[in-house]
């Protein structure tokens, strides 16, 4: 212990200690001289040996190496700038990807105590649901001891004053803001004591951005009355700027959950136990863990089943996920993250292979310098350390540049995607640690092998170069193939028939269930609406569907058919659905009106479930197959493997149905007319009307974005590889100028000379491409779900990618080689 202190004291007071040592030895010398002896030996060497005892020589050497590295890099600015740029891109891409992941999953939300927040969802082995009935949530709140609080949230759209556009609303439990530690910008936020009381007056909290936009940031709005869904409600406050909410669900206005029936007359949301309606979060009590909470909730669920045996599923349990981050990460999502991580690491690999090649080339140019140093007595280990330090300096500078690049990119992305205000591109400690780790890894990847080679002056440089070329080609090949697949998928999605018609369909959701309509009343209402709509000019078909196509809700069953995994998307439709959506009925027929126990399956489902047989008349669960429809991935356009099953809608389904209207011409004009029809039938309803076309466009935008990003990255990687090959070939050529000149003087044709020069690169390129294609084929199965039906082994994509790669590689190799062919033979032969 004391030793460490002494060593540190030495480090701080170095000069004094060294001076003292010198004086000691001086004195010793004087005395010895007096006694007549004068054989002293090398003073400097002795002083050095004495200093070594303090154990700081490694620090001295490091400082030496660093300053030498800096000087060397400054002397060859061309190399340094190129290397830094290349590194900036390679590391920058990785840092950007990690920053995004950090923002979404690692960084805690700026709310009170985010680590104790958990998202609670209902699960059973067969069913997944993101929402639970409000009444059940309250039951858990009242009985769970491991949870110190329960928050609920329900999204809705309400009309405001007389505006055409509804406002995005969140109904939340009154403890929402307090639990998250938010304080109002003006007025007050929701409070349990006042807003959940039995006769509490209706109040609303305005979203900050909405308040600025709609009310001109007027502080006097607090206390005024506004009308939502034509009901008067008092504004009590404005949420704080940059309030993060939970799960990224912000809103324009916030209302207390207990007041929902005030706005939706007849709504049974607060008492109904059979339909999931709210999203639920819990706060773990002090000392409780998530698994303890899950245990307790399981017990409570079983108790609840005794009271409501039909509404609680068999084997239902409540699952908790960490809720304190921007996005609730469930284990399945980590697969996507892993894939992105692998892709970005591939880019790093290309970068480092590139640089490694450059380093090796430089090493050859520094042979003389190394020779002199070795001759003067430097050990190979010393030179190796010094070369590695050079690479480290380069990596550090490159990482700093990469961090800057990533930060700038992130800022642009955040600005363009209208992301929540409180997200910032500034790196936090996790990102910084990641950057340092990347720098170290890059150093090892591109600096280690060349340093080893150069220090030992081995002549295996050709093999090393070939390996590096091969690695770059392989990595670029994989990236290009992935990009090519995604581009093809985007094309396929945009220009191929998705199996249904969306261009001229309008969907109208009257929200009957939300307003407490009974099935009978809903059936009557829908019937009236249908006749009114059919009477409009230009309307061809009106049909009913439960889960609107390209809409908010999706249902999915994951099961196995004959041992293989299958995703089935069920829907409940009336008999005119297929006509409205232009989905061909290939075999059999559509339903009869209100037909019971009938099901129409998609072609792919029929083939999987009953391969080679006629599916008509077969039993599917409790239903009989009456028809087979063409594949139409209406609710999961990206998943080419998805299967659909359409059940005949029953009277009990009526309150949840959405109306689809198909017209002959452009559907835009239908919207206001539909709105007025709905309102004239019942002025208390506020339907959600949208064009299917817009939903489709939004999905496509995303697809295009992903495809273009990956293509960009792929092209960057290929450009890097191309530059690398260019450098290596031109270097190789410059080494062999004389040999080439002799060959040409002796009469070799251009082709023969080219062959001689490029032969060493032929097999690495070929092997690299083969390896890249192989890896891409093996690993791209993961991508299937995002490929919109394009096979992950699609030959056209692979061929395109390989051709592009060959073109770039060919160009990169031929350019310098051609230069060699045009040289002045006589001059070269005489030059030495």
């Amino acid at each position, binding site marked *: 212990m004391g030793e460490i202190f002494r060593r540190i004291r030495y480090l701080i007071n170095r000069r004094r200690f060294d001076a*003292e040592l010198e004086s000691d*030895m001086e*004195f*010793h010398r*004087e005395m010895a001289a007096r006694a007549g002896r004068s054989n002293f*030996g090398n003073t400097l060497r002795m002083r050095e*040996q*004495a200093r070594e005892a303090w154990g700081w020589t490694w620090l001295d050497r490091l400082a030496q190496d660093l300053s030498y590295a800096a000087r060397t890099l400054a002397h060859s600015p061309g190399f340094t700038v190129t290397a830094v740029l290349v590194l900036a891109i390679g590391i920058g891409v990785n840092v950007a990807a990690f920053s995004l992941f950090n923002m979404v999953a690692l960084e805690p939300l700026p709310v009170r105590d985010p680590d104790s927040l958990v998202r609670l969802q209902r699960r059973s082995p067969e069913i997944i649901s993101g929402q639970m009935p409000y009444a059940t949530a309250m039951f858990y709140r009242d009985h769970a001891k491991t949870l110190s609080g329960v928050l609920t949230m329900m999204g809705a759209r309400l009309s405001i004053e007389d505006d055409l556009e509804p406002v995005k609303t969140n109904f939340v439990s009154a403890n929402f803001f307090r639990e998250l530690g938010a304080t109002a910008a003006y007025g007050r936020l929701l409070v349990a004591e006042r807003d959940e009381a039995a006769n509490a007056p209706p109040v609303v909290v305005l979203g900050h951005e909405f308040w600025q936009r709609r009310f001109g940031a007027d502080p006097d709005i607090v206390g005024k009355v506004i009308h939502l869904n034509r009901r008067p409600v008092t504004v009590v406050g404005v949420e704080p700027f940059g309030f993060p909410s939970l799960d990224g669900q912000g809103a324009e206005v916030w209302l207390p959950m207990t007041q929902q029936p005030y706005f939706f007359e007849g709504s049974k949301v607060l008492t109904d136990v059979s339909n999931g309606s709210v999203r639920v979060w819990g706060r773990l009590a002090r000392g409780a863990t998530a698994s303890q909470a899950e245990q307790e909730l399981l017990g409570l669920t079983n108790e609840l089943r005794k009271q409501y045996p039909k509404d609680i599923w068999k084997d239902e349990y409540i699952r908790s996920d960490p809720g304190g981050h921007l996005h609730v990460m469930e284990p399945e999502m980590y697969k996507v993250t892993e894939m992105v991580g692998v892709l970005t690491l591939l880019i790093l690999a290309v970068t480092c292979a590139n640089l490694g090649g450059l380093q090796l080339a430089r090493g050859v140019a520094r042979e003389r310098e190394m020779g002199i140093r070795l001759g003067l007595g430097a050990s190979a280990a010393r030179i190796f350390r010094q070369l590695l330090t050079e690479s480290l300096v380069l990596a550090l500078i490159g990482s700093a540049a990469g961090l800057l690049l990533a930060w700038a990119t992130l800022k642009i992305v955040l600005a363009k995607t209208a992301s929540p205000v409180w997200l910032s591109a500034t790196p936090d400690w996790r990102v910084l640690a990641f950057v340092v780790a990347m720098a170290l890894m890059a150093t090892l990847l591109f600096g280690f092998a060349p340093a080893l080679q150069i220090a030992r002056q081995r002549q295996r440089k050709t093999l090393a170069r070939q390996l590096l070329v091969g690695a770059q080609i392989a990595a670029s090949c994989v990236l290009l193939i992935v990009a090519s697949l995604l581009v093809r998928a985007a094309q396929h999605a945009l220009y191929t028939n998705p199996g249904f018609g969306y261009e001229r369909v309008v969907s109208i959701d009257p929200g009957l269930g939300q307003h407490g309509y009974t099935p009978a009343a809903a059936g009557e209402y829908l019937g009236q609406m249908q006749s009114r709509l059919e009477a409009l000019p230009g309307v061809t078909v009106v049909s009913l569907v439960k889960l609107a196509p390209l809409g908010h809700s999706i249902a999915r069953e994951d099961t196995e058919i004959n041992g293989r995994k299958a995703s089935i998307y069920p829907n409940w439709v009336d008999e005119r659905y297929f006509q409205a959506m232009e989905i061909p009925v290939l075999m059999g027929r559509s339903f009869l009106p209100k037909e019971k126990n009938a099901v129409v399956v998609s072609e792919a489902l029929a083939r999987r479930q009953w391969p080679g047989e006629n599916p008509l008349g077969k039993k599917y669960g409790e239903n009989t197959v009456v028809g087979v429809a063409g594949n139409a991935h209406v609710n999961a356009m990206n998943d080419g493997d998805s299967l659909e099953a359409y059940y005949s809608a029953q009277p009990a389904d009526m309150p949840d149905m959405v109306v689809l209207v198909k017209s002959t011409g452009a559907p835009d004009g239908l919207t206001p007319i539909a709105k007025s029809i709905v309102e004239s039938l019942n002025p208390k309803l506020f339907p959600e009307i949208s064009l299917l076309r817009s939903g489709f466009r939004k999905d496509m935008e995303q697809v295009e974005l992903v495809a273009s990003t990956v293509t960009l990255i792929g092209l960057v990687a290929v450009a890097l590889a191309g530059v690398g090959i260019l450098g290596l070939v031109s270097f190789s050529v410059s080494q062999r100028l004389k040999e080439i000149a002799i060959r040409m003087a002796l009469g070799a044709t251009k082709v023969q000379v080219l062959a001689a020069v490029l032969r060493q690169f032929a097999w690495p390129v070929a092997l690299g491409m083969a390896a890249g294609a192989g890896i891409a084929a093996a690993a791209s199965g993961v991508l299937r779900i995002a490929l919109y039906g394009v096979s992950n082994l699609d030959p056209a994509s692979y061929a395109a990618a390989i051709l592009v790669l060959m073109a770039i590689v060919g160009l990169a190799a031929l350019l310098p080689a051609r230069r060699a062919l045009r040289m002045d033979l006589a001059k070269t032969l005489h030059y030495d």
Partner: protein
Amino acid sequence: MPAGALPMLILRVLQSGSLHGYALAQRIHILSSEVLAVEEGLLYPTLQKMLVKGWVTAEWGISETNRKVRFYRLTPEGRKHLKAELSDYDRVTQAIQDILRTA
């Protein structure tokens, strides 16, 4: 001289009082009847190592020739270490002698 012996010798010599470097070398030379000679190149690195380990400290003083020089002094840790070294040395020497006598 055996490399590991010097620290032990220095500690033993310093037990009787502080000395500066030259005097230390002289004392060892004389006490061993001129058999052992400590070169500068060995003495000072060893002294530095002992300073790091905390067995000796150095203080400024005036030499016989009226010059400022550092005197090395034994510390309590040094004393402890000396005792340990001496007993080890005894044991090892005894063992070697046993073998030489009887083998």
